């Protein structure tokens, strides 16, 4: 893929964004940027503020503080919002009595687009044969694809997708992955939230990791995993309590995973091995956790440790890394419905 092959993508900027629902802080002073021409994963555990952030970006939720802009403007201030941004938020936003084509005609009308576009996007997502069916009879996967078709109605420069693979079968997920890469390959900005980390690892170029509404890391996938790799040690021991005391004394951050498992953050085997030996701690297992996205995600979202690493990873990347796979230059054939 040639990054930014065209100039059609628009940057997304989140600056100091916060949202309080009464005493609950859903998003806490969140700042990050999303580049055009790349697929950016927006990752975080359930309740970490991902959906709230995306809804603030789309003007559905009012921020308590901060700004969320697309090309420097709030979504609601864009001249042609649906030509600039397409969003997949929830697969339940349909009137069940409405037919798929009618729903898309309505979306085309609302955005000021040619209603013929409805048939085009139905074809893009593989729902041409279901155009006249009522949405109430659609499966969750079909609704997801219809939601994606709705997002594409204005041929937008930015795609915002909130858990788009929910309800999709493996074939549909693979298609969605190729489709997102194709869209990014055209220079569009693609921001996708998901909890399917293994799936995301194969799809995204950049990642933004949040937990408890706060930014934990931002950068390319390579940068984030390289920053963490080799720095998590997991020990299994019958003396977990004593190990905790030793680690506390040595100033090493750690987390109790189970009653006999301890994860040690920011240390190497060369550092922790002699320490455990000198304290004569019985070990059943001592392993270095891999630097894949899932382990990084789990480390960063556990709420303990990695303060320095997270800050380092949060630094904008001056040299974009190679994406996980080359982007297709034509849209992938849609899966059968």
């Amino acid at each position: 893929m040639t990054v930014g092959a065209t100039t059609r993508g628009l940057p997304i900027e989140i600056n100091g964004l916060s949202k309080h629902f009464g005493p609950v802080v859903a998003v806490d002073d969140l700042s990050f940027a999303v580049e055009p021409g790349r697929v950016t994963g927006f990752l975080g555990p359930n309740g970490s503020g991902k959906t709230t952030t995306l809804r603030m970006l789309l003007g559905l939720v009012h921020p308590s503080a901060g700004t969320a802009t697309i090309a420097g403007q709030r979504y609601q201030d864009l001249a042609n919002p649906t030509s600039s941004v397409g969003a997949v938020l929830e697969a339940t936003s349909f009137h069940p009595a409405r037919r798929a084509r009618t729903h898309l005609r309505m979306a085309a009308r609302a955005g000021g687009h040619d209603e013929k576009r409805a048939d085009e996007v139905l074809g893009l997502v593989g729902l041409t044969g279901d155009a006249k069916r009522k949405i109430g009879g659609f499966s969750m996967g079909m609704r997801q694809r219809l939601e994606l078709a709705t997002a594409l109605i204005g041929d937008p420069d930015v795609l915002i997708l909130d858990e788009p693979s929910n309800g999709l079968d493996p074939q549909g997920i693979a298609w969605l992955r190729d489709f997102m890469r194709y869209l990014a390959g055209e220079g569009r900005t693609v921001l996708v939230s998901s909890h399917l980390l293994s799936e995301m690892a194969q799809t995204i170029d950049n990642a933004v990791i949040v937990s408890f509404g706060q930014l934990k890391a931002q950068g390319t996938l390579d940068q984030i995993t390289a920053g963490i790799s080799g720095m998590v040690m997991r020990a299994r021991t019958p003396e977990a309590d004593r190990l905790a005391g030793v680690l506390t004394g040595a100033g090493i951050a750690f987390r109790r995973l189970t009653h006999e498992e301890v994860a040690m953050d920011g240390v190497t085997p060369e550092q922790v091995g002699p320490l455990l030996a000198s304290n004569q701690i019985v070990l059943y297992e001592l392993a270095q956790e891999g630097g894949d996205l899932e382990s990084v995600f789990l480390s960063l979202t556990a709420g303990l440790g990695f303060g320095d690493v997270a800050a380092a990873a949060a630094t904008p990347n001056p040299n974009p890394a190679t994406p996980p796979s080359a982007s297709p230059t034509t849209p992938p054939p849609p899966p059968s419905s």
Partner: protein
Amino acid sequence: MINALRAELLKMRTMPGVWVTFGLALPLTILGILIVLASAGGFPGHAFYYVSSLSQRRRLLGAGFFGIEVLAPILGVLCITSEYRQKTITTSLVLVPVRSRVLLAKVIATALWSIFIALLGLVAIAAVALPWNAALGGVTSQVTDQVGAVIPGLLASAVLLGLFGLGFGTLVKNQVAAILLTIGGTLILEGILIALSKAILHYDLNWLPNGAGAALAGDIARGFGGGGGGGGGNGPNAFHLLTWWQGGLVLLAWGVGPLILGYFTTFRRDVT
């Protein structure tokens, strides 16, 4: 704005509930015609009689008001509450992110569909009421010469009662609750309050939505207050409606008030 309006019109056209209201417009109008012709007086043994007095002629022409007062508020309620019930409000506000524009489009769409319901009622008047009245011995031209006095007000009532439903739907959001509030409120509660007010306070509670609508629709579109009908009569039991322009202003307040309140409260809230 035009784009948002076109989308709203298509939404309403593809909503089953809207077609149910249309389906009810004709039978409710015919029911209104039956009531007018049955209460027109006549010889013993005759269930129906032709209309003759000015009040009766206007009531026959405005018999569609019975359907309008029920169905127009429901249309307004459906227009907004279906968005929340089916969760389509998210898509609607992503497609048209300026909320005032969405609500204004709904106002115009509700107004147009309410007029359509009123026109359906007028079709029933032309197809059923006038021939029937003529068959009973009435003079058709004596009824049709009241068109100018009744129809514009009837259409305006339809629009404002539709907005009344839209406003309550915007405030309440729950579809069932909003329908119960608007229809139950205007058909049942309003009647009870009027009767209580008259009986206890000797006061004509004529500024509630349907009373205001009846006044706007030619002050006799609906029979208020016993045998005297409409605003006529000077007896102690006569019910005096507002003048047409007072009724129009009051109904405008009932239509726009909840709408403005709903916009600045619920409609601008976060969509989570």
